């Protein structure tokens, strides 16, 4: 299996972004997705900046993919989209059917996780248009994935969102601006204040969701580091880590160590939990509510230790 780094879902300042990608270039990750996928108002890195980041990463030997914005509303969104899909060097991750239309039958592409591929017929259709890889919807279970892949005629590479706060929903409304009693058009770029988003808790204090501009994420961190074996046996080719405010490079290294069996799943889980902004969840992979956490690899020996 290959290791991928997803696009940055948050809004960080320009220097932090460049510094982050310098570290990524030096890391052991195989594939890097770059681009603004959440909000068109996030302007600190423009298309040319992302291209220069992509060039640097490619020089460091990474496979680079340019990700498109998920919610395309305006003509200016479409203009940005066309610049990305028209780039002649890097592969594109299409996150909307509008993007698919622009790359279909022209260049190979990655079918993003918001394209809603739930069955082999849809996956075959996209593969026929040029998708060489697809990213599974976050709510899909291991069992459903295995059935889907068993019934596919084409077999593009399968990628799974395996670590990070889950991108669960998109809206026209900005919830971060709403929190500050601002309208989206005058949001004062409040997202810059929250490098990991803004946690929404129930009135009992249970961390439930995470506000990230127009995107709503899970508050818990989806974490399949303990599931690398079942990912592989289900037919997954690429596991994706989603960047977070701190420790992303260390998290990539833990995934790499676990993939190459330098760490057991239980060891990797114990170490990664110290680096997470919130507790783990993995229910979706087990066909349960997403916020559940099922510990498949309990720490060995403790139960039978007589002392």
């Amino acid at each position, binding site marked *: 299996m290959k290791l991928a780094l997803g696009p940055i879902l948050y809004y960080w300042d320009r220097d932090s972004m460049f510094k982050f990608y310098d570290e990524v270039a030096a890391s052991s990750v195989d594939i890097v997705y770059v681009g603004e996928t959440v909000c068109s108002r996030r302007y600190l890195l423009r298309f040319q900046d992302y291209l220069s980041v992509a060039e640097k990463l490619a020089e460091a030997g990474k496979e680079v993919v340019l990700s498109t914005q*998920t*919610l*395309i*509303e*305006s*003509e200016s*969104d*479409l203009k940005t989209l066309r610049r990305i899909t028209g780039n002649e060097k890097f592969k594109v991750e299409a996150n*909307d*059917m*509008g*993007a698919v*239309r*622009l790359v279909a039958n022209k260049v190979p592409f990655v079918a993003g996780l*918001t394209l*809603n591929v*739930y*069955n*082999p*017929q*849809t*996956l*075959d*259709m*996209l593969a026929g248009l040029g998708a060489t890889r697809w990213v599974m*919807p*976050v*709510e899909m279970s291991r069992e*459903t994935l295995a*059935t*889907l892949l068993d*019934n596919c005629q084409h077999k593009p590479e399968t990628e799974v969102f395996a670590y990070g706060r*889950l991108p*669960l*929903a*998109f*809206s*026209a*409304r*900005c919830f971060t601006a709403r*929190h500050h009693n601002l*309208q*989206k*058009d005058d949001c004062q770029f409040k997202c810059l204040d929250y490098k990991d988003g*803004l*946690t*929404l*808790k*129930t*009135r009992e204090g*249970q961390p*439930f*969701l995470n*506000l990230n501009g127009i995107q*709503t994420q899970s508050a818990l961190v989806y974490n399949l580091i303990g599931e690398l074996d079942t990912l592989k046996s289900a037919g997954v080719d690429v596991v994706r880590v989603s960047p977070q405010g701190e420790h992303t490079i260390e998290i990539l290294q833990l995934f790499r160590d676990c993939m190459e069996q330098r760490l057991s799943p239980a060891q990797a889980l114990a170490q990664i939990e110290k680096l997470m902004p919130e507790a783990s969840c993995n*229910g979706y992979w087990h*066909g349960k*509510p*997403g*916020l559940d956490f099922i510990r498949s690899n309990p720490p060995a020996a403790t139960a039978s230790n007589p002392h």
Partner: protein
Amino acid sequence: MQPDTTKKMDLVCPAGSLPALKTAIDNGADCVYMGFRDDTNARNFAGLNFDLTNAREGVRYAHAKGKKVLLALNTFPQASGWQRWTKAIDNAADIGIDAVILADPGLMQYATKNHPNLRLHLSVQGSATNHEAINFYHEMFGIQRAVLPRVLALAQVEQLMTHTKVEIELFGFGGLCVMVEGRCSLSSYATGESPNTCGVCSPPKAVRWQQTAKGLESRLNGILIDRYGEDENAGYPTLCKGRFDVAGETYYAIEEPTSLNTLELLPELKRLGIAAIKIEGRQRSPAYVGQVTKVWREAIDSCNRNAQAYSVKPAWMADLGNISEGQQHTLGAYYRPWK
């Protein structure tokens, strides 16, 4: 494309049952939309929807009065149940449904291949918010109408319409999804079931009500969605419409319990050349459907007769206000500051 402003806007009304279908037709709906009694549609609730016999009778009733019936098959077929969805398409064609409302490309491909004369509408669950996406579905599968997600401002709708020949249907009234339809997994995150996979959001079987010392609590799979004071009306715990704590502040962090109502926009929608106005609410009672249909029929007729002289009658708003969720109305994203 130039908008056809002489064209009359169709009124598309919800039918969760045969009595609701008949009431909608009798009160002036041009079209009704319904679903079969399973997870092939996004209102998969117990006691709701149509078996084949009722669906046949519904089509007969509507067609006898010169009205149309649309069938929502707008969930995403899961890999293990594909035949349930294709059978639904076959049945729709067989009983003379006027159009099927689809979200899944694989299913559109099946319909195109096997029932080339069946008219296809792109469901709001298809998340098409731009003309490139709509034209994709048109070129690939010949969809003739698209229902837009409730995310675009009117100026954006207008811009979109200049670049496509696909008819546009907009939501006019009813429950308001604050998220882009088809791109929301909040419900499965909390409960395991979502609109995309199971045709439900915040499913009733996950709901618990509990009277406590702090007030009446509504929970979804154990998660506290809201807590009501004695003077407050409790609402259904749709998870995006609860009160939560963000950075020490408790408020409706995502959306208030409110209904979409676009009566005041009708002349503008007509100027844009909108083909149809959709009323949400297949889960509602026949009485509700009848009342909403009646008001909207009057309003659309008034607007069709003379758009310049059109104004919203206070009696319409009063009638609709009495039956709306939370008794509050909003223009939603059509009005830019809502965002």
